[in-house]
């Protein structure tokens, strides 16, 4: 069996973090990067399998010339949780350091030809079970772990595939499309060479491969666009509720642009916040107005964006930012639904909406029937009274998934002038699951601490999955492997190796990239061929 590795401690900054390896080559892999404090100790646990358990103090190589102090706990098979050789690296709990270390281990192992890979969700437990460590009664628990961890991974993958907030993953998906296109041309010239089809010139193949290689190389730069880890926490709600101000206040620095005008935020903005050792990735979104205004304020008053000259352009931008906000909500781990507490009627309506959007708080399983109908509430009708504003009418925003939500009533400093919005008032709204409600003022800082505490509480009570995700490392690793395969493909082309070998490398590149942004099968490739080329006699 392959040797597997994963972070075994919760994410975020902490005094100590644990990286765990299991499998036949765990020890050799770690020892390649490890320098014991007392050299005489170093070789004992490998040379002598008499040692069932040992602990070594020393330093571990994180990156060239950079070491971190660490303790190695070595458990020899079968005296470990998985009944395989297990090594735990206990070191400083800094997320960037751990990520570097993880990548260092993976790339070193790959170079020395050892089969080390990131553990699948629940894989340590699965191995423990398969090797007879855990008894039968625990099997069901194992199944549940695999299921829930995999669902978390799937959400992460969906976040990537949907493009998340910054559109980078979308371009990754486009690059994948071009790679598939090239493979399609190659397979065409292999499988249909007897047909009336222009062969793929070696030069074209080469230049396209080079472009792809260059494009993909950009992604893996150290400061590259692959997103930071952390518990994704999205701010969403109607415009002018003060989301960006709250976002900045929570961060303690003016990361997002704010103004008294609604609709200031057009794009999603991300920033990392560490609270009590937990990393949160805060995502600010453009406000989406949604109330049909039967009650409350008329949209043409101050809530309405100052009538901009280029209304058409503005409309387009608005449509885009709605989509982005929607995606940001769907792919987050935690949501802060922010309302303007100074305007009770508007807030009430928003709440009604939240009520309908959050009815299915649990089980975000896609494809479950009936969920779509239930999760409609968050409509986008900017200033719209139904048909009145036809040209700016946008389709209702349908959220396919709502993360666990905290209701934030902002502008509490102003609410003195408005009727108070007590929790009691929520009753007639028939909320099936009360979201926790926090009153804040981004201006005075009131309630911010409580909000932070509530966010942590959501993580600690298990509502939000905070298990550290190897997704970033995995993404980078897969990109690395994709690039290697592309490099080999280029090598083949330069040496005029037969094209089916180039195809083999491309196929491998596509498979690796597919693990990041969705699989492309050989059937998909054939489908592309048949739709673009007139094949067949």
């Amino acid at each position: 069996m392959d040797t597997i590795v994963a972070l075994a401690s919760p994410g975020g900054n902490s005094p100590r973090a644990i990286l765990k390896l299991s499998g036949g080559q765990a020890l050799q892999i770690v020892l390649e990067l490890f320098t014991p404090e007392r050299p005489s100790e170093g070789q004992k646990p490998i040379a002598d399998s008499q040692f069932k358990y040992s602990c070594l103090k020393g330093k571990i190589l994180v990156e060239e010339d950079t070491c971190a102090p660490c303790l190695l706990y070595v458990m020899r098979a079968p005296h470990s949780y998985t009944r395989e050789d297990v090594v735990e690296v206990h070191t400083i709990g800094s997320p960037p350091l751990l990520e570097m270390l993880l990548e260092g281990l993976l790339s070193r192992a790959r170079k020395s030809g050892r089969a080390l890979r990131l553990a699948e969700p629940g894989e340590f437990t699965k191995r423990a079970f398969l090797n007879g460590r855990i008894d039968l009664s625990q099997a069901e628990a194992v199944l549940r772990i695999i299921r829930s961890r995999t669902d978390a991974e799937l959400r992460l993958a969906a976040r990537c595939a949907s493009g998340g907030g910054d559109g980078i993953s979308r371009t990754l998906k486009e690059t994948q499309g071009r790679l598939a296109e090239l493979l399609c041309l190659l397979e065409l010239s292999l499988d249909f060479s007897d047909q009336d089809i222009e062969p793929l010139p070696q030069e074209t193949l080469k230049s396209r491969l080079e472009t792809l290689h260059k494009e993909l190389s950009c992604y893996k730069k150290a400061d590259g666009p692959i997103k930071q880890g952390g518990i994704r926490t999205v701010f969403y709600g109607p415009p002018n509720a003060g989301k960006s101000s709250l976002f900045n206040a929570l961060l303690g620095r003016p990361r997002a642009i704010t103004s008294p005008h609604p609709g200031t935020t057009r794009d999603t903005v991300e920033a990392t916040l560490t609270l009590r050792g937990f990393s949160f990735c805060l995502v600010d979104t453009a406000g989406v107005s949604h109330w049909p205004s039967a009650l409350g304020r008329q949209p043409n008053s101050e809530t309405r964006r100052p009538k901009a000259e280029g209304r058409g352009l503005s409309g387009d931008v608005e449509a885009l930012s709605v989509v982005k906000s929607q995606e940001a909500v769907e792919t987050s781990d935690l949501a802060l639904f922010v309302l303007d507490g100074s305007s009770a009627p508007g807030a009430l309506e928003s709440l009604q909406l939240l009520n309908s959007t959050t009815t299915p708080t649990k089980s975000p399983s896609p494809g479950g029937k009936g969920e779509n109908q239930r999760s409609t509430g968050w409509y986008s009708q900017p200033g719209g009274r139904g048909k009145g504003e036809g040209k700016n009418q946008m389709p209702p925003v349908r959220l396919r998934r709502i993360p666990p939500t905290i209701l934030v009533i902002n502008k509490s400093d102003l609410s003195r002038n408005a009727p108070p919005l007590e929790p009691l008032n929520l009753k007639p709204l028939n909320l099936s699951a009360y979201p926790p409600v926090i009153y804040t003022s981004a201006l005075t800082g009131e309630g911010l601490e409580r909000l932070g505490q509530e966010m942590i509480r959501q993580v600690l009570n298990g509502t939000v999955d905070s298990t550290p995700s190897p997704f970033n490392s995995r993404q980078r690793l897969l990109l690395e492997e994709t690039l290697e395969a592309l490099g080999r493909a280029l090598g083949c082309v330069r040496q005029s190796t037969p094209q089916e070998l180039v195809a083999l490398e491309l196929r491998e590149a596509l498979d690796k990239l597919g693990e990041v942004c969705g699989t492309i099968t050989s059937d998909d490739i054939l489908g592309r061929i048949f739709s673009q080329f007139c094949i067949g006699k």
Partner: protein
Amino acid sequence: MVNNYDVIVVGGGHAGCEAALATARMGQRTLLLTINPDTIAQMSCNPAIGGMAKGQLVREIDALGGEMARGTDATAIQFHMLNTKKGPAVRSPRAQADKRLYQKEMKRRLESQENLSIRQDVAESLLVENGKAIGVAGQTGTHYKARAVILTTGTFLKGLIHIGESKRPGGRTGEPSAQGLSDSLRALGFEVGRLKTGTPPRLNARTINFEGLQQQWGDVEPQPFSFSTEKGREWPCHPQVPCYITYTNAETHKIIRENLHRAPLYTGQIKAVGPRYCPSIEDKIVRFADKGQHQIFLEPEGLDTLETYCNGIATSLPCDVQERLVRSIRGLEAAEIIRYGYAIEYDFVPPTQLKPTLETKLVENLFLAGQINGTSGYEEAAAQGIMAGINAALRLRGEGGFVLDRSEAYIGVLIDDLVTKGTQEPYRMFTSRAEYRLILRQDNADRRLMKYGYKFGLIPEGQWKSLEEKESLIAWTRAYLQNTLYEGQSLEKFLRKPEVDFARLLAIDPSLREKGLPPGVKEQVEIGVKYEGYIQRQMAHVEKFKKMESWSLPPWLDYQEIPELRKEARQKLLEIRPASLGQAARISGVSPADVSILMVYLTSKSGARG
């Protein structure tokens, strides 16, 4: 009169021939039921065998002891190895066969096969008792009894032929269809679907002006299809003839466009799905409107006939439109059509209802092979035919099934795709369907598969001996190249250079030359050395693949009992009932997590059982 057999094969097409020969050769008294014995092994479509990926299939059938390759060698009038400019993994043999000759040759071989009877009758219904196939009822009223039945009905089940506005029942043009059998399958609980395929018009060569048309000859040194064919003085057996190439043009396209309202494909008259890779000419012109011309191959149907196959203009347009469109084409200005092109719709049994042995899940001892399983092509049919035959015989002997996996053969890819994923259109093999293309080559089909053919008694002792000889020569040569130095490096390393081939080695090493290695050995060594790195990489993948394949899913597994499976996955697993974890992983809708869950669940259960 005794009508008791071990096996009944219904249908005498390419699947039926291989199936019947395999069961008879494996000692089962076999009856081949056919609507018309004169159309045994008939090439309903173009007079050619092989082609990309299909050529590999034929070589594999041959290595298992089938007849298709030998039949082709005995009757071909043009041999051509495709993709010789590319690497060995995508080279495929193809041949034009003399259609009548092939048909007669195969019929004679079937007639002279011990244990094999041929009978003219139309199978009307399947006889089933206690969930087991026990025979077939013929249209003549005869009940044919057997212990196993193989259906290879091609396009004959409720075949409906379309030419323009006219449609009439038929299995092939001029031949009746089988109306009752698919109802009998439905009544047994099988799901039955419908597919469509088509053929082009056939012309009289006397009326074709070949002048100025591009000629296409076969290879100067034709390579036989069969590993058993000797390239003696009689090789090739028949005079070799050329094909010709012409093209459609703007006028042709105009005629077609103006008559689309009479094309059954567009009037809604044809409802079934046809193959995307083999569209009719009207489909090509609608879907690829900006393409100015389409290639047509004029292929001779035989040496003793002037009938010419118009490869490239399959159509179901009305006869008068066919006439006009043909005559708009260069060289065909005065051409006379002997047979019109037509489209045919027919019943098929969606193949996810089969086990990997091609036995149905619903009825024991009932096997299906060929177009009835939703495939297209003689080679795909024959490949399933021999596999169904072998499995029926093994079944009757009480032995375990014979399943080739995706890393062993294109046949494995074919059947695994069919039974795991099913098909939405007539299924055709392509090399890109094979994950392990570098290993599954036409040149090594004997080394991959002949062991099985020999084991089942389908490969004669002599042929097996010569393969063993070949293997030992290959091993000797590999060792020799590794241990012999030339200019400070081993000959093997020298051969790895792109510009060096085996002939070069022979030129520099007299003792290697003296060994007089046969061409097949030199070829294997050269490919083995030059692609070693890649082959090893694929072998590493194969090893992982095999691990998953060998993890079998027992029949007692109750997917309803595993709540952690996703609903979609559970439904798919219930429907397909995969034989192994590997197969389960290939079902669309079954995620890696579901596979993990199955793994854990299985371990816990098998632990509980003992």
